[in-house]
């Protein structure tokens, strides 16, 4: 039996700021993982990644990252993606800083 497919989100870094970004269902990018499109089908994931890479002039290094559905949208599976979502643990910089300014 084939292994079950772990749902994915498409993530990359913004070309100018380097910030972690996620691909949304409308083909635009968000800085918030919860807003990302959760892709549940393996073939669809590859097609969506190709779609995202069409925007390589504005993004860097798009890839598929494991994710799971949460009450407020996609959530990370691996701790590396959790750090990418939040920012560093030694200072409230990056996304934590952006949140503090909201």
């Amino acid at each position, binding site marked *: 039996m084939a292994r079950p497919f772990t749902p994915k989100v498409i993530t990359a870094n913004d070309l100018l*700021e*380097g910030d972690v970004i996620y691909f949304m269902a409308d083909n635009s990018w968000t800085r918030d993982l919860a807003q990302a499109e959760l892709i549940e089908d393996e073939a669809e994931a590859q097609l969506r990644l190709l779609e995202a890479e069409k925007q390589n002039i504005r993004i*860097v290094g798009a890839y598929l990252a494991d994710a799971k559905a949460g009450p407020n949208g996609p959530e990370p599976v691996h*701790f590396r993606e959790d*750090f990418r979502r939040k*920012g*560093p643990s*030694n200072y409230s910089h990056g996304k934590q800083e952006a949140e503090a300014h909201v």
Partner: protein
Amino acid sequence: MYKYNAFDAAFLAERNAQFRAQVERRIDGSLTEDEFKPLRLMNGVYLQLHAYMLRVAIPYGTLNSAQMRALALLAEKWDKGYGHFTTRQNIQYNWPKLNDIPDMLDALGEVGLHAIQTSGNTIRNTTADHFAGAAADELTDPRPYAELIRQWSTDHPEFQFLGRKFKIGITGSPNDRAVVKAHDVGLRMVEQNGEIGFEVIVGGGLGRTPMVGKVIRDFLPQADLLPYLEAVLSVYNVLGRRDNKYKARIKITVQENGIEKIRDLVDARFTERQREFDGTDQALLAEIKTHFTPPALRTGSTDAYQAAYDADPVFRAWADTNLAEHRDSAHAIVTVSIKAHGATPGDASAEQMRTMADLAEELGYDELRISHQQNVILPHVHKSDLPALHARLKEQGLATANIGLISDIIACPGMDYCALATARSIPVAQEIASRFDDLKLEHDIGHLQIKISGCINACGHHHVAHIGILGLDRAGVENYQITLGGDATETAAIGTRTGPGFAYDEIVPAVERLIEAYLTLRSDAEETFLETYRRLGMEPFKTALYPEAQKKVA
């Protein structure tokens, strides 16, 4: 210290202008990321987890006050108000924006600093003893040779596309503070028949396959340095493997071919190369040496120092740990700790950098050094100025008295920043430092080096730590392996793994058990952790680390 001449300044300005145009072409879409990436890496620009990172070389760890102020300016104007001093005498900025980086490089160029060859498969920043030019045990200042290597290796056409990166370390002292045995090439100045030359060590390195370098040449006359280095690089360039990234460093070339074969090949190449050198390098070296004339050290009474030492216990504790012996008995070498308990090892704020620049200018003959141990050194301070210096450092949170102690931890950026990391390093360092500060045991424990890497590449030098910690990803969870008995000095040794790793919330208690065991086992308060380990071996420490396993055996 070395001052750029018109050629250096023009070269750097042109290089920065080229990079500015490359950035513009990436942003307007003329360059793809695949085309741009090698260009940005050649100029020290990485893309990390959350942002770009700019790595600036601090050649052989030497700065003047104007350069330190420029580093502060970059932190404040284009980053988040701080910089991170690394384990290879570089400074890293963690948050630059891509289109600001050309301006940052121009600002660095104005004070004679750059980010060239801080990445890529090239000859990297040559690191040196951070006490160079000041240490009491030094034969001669190694920095003119490091500067000669910098000029020779920068943009050297033959060595821009090596099989892998190539790191050179140099020391002018018999006591190795530059970890030269863990470099691709280590240079140790030695004396033979009244002449000073180099012992050349090759094939050292940490990372996936840690190795202590082997001596390839007992004594190399000073004048033969560049032709000999070219011979080593040339043999590596031909023999080094390009089929497997993990077997591409020269340490593997030496291991697979044997030091004898490498030595023979290098000697043969050296004979050829030597003929190509017409003395220009020696003329250049003579000119470089004029920039490294030792400062005219002032004389005067050191009574003020002794009075403060006797009267103020806080000053005394700092003096006992953070001062090293200067070649002039009225002066001291000051190590400024960038390791306040609970802070990120190696991080300094713009304000702290300016304070250190001011102190260097006012009290330290305008000289600063950065150590691979991620601290800042004022290499020449008259002892009578130490009480005032200490007071100024205290105001900026820079007077932590912990050099060489358990909280003077080397830590790589780990998974808080680094795209290669498999686990975090910084919070582990912060918690260990805070824990032993709370226990008030630090000074009782004495000399102890803890070094933490967040992945197998070992930027945190964990293999050569007395207690090394390596963070790994084990089935999607952070896991930390411990090694014991490593040594980063002239008696270099790779540490031995204790056994299974520890979870994130278990690693600090595990270190605490090791320390408790050491305090019980040591013969007296003078015996260091490393000495106790060498006397008793792994077993008693294993027992302390893995009490559950012991119970099962019993």
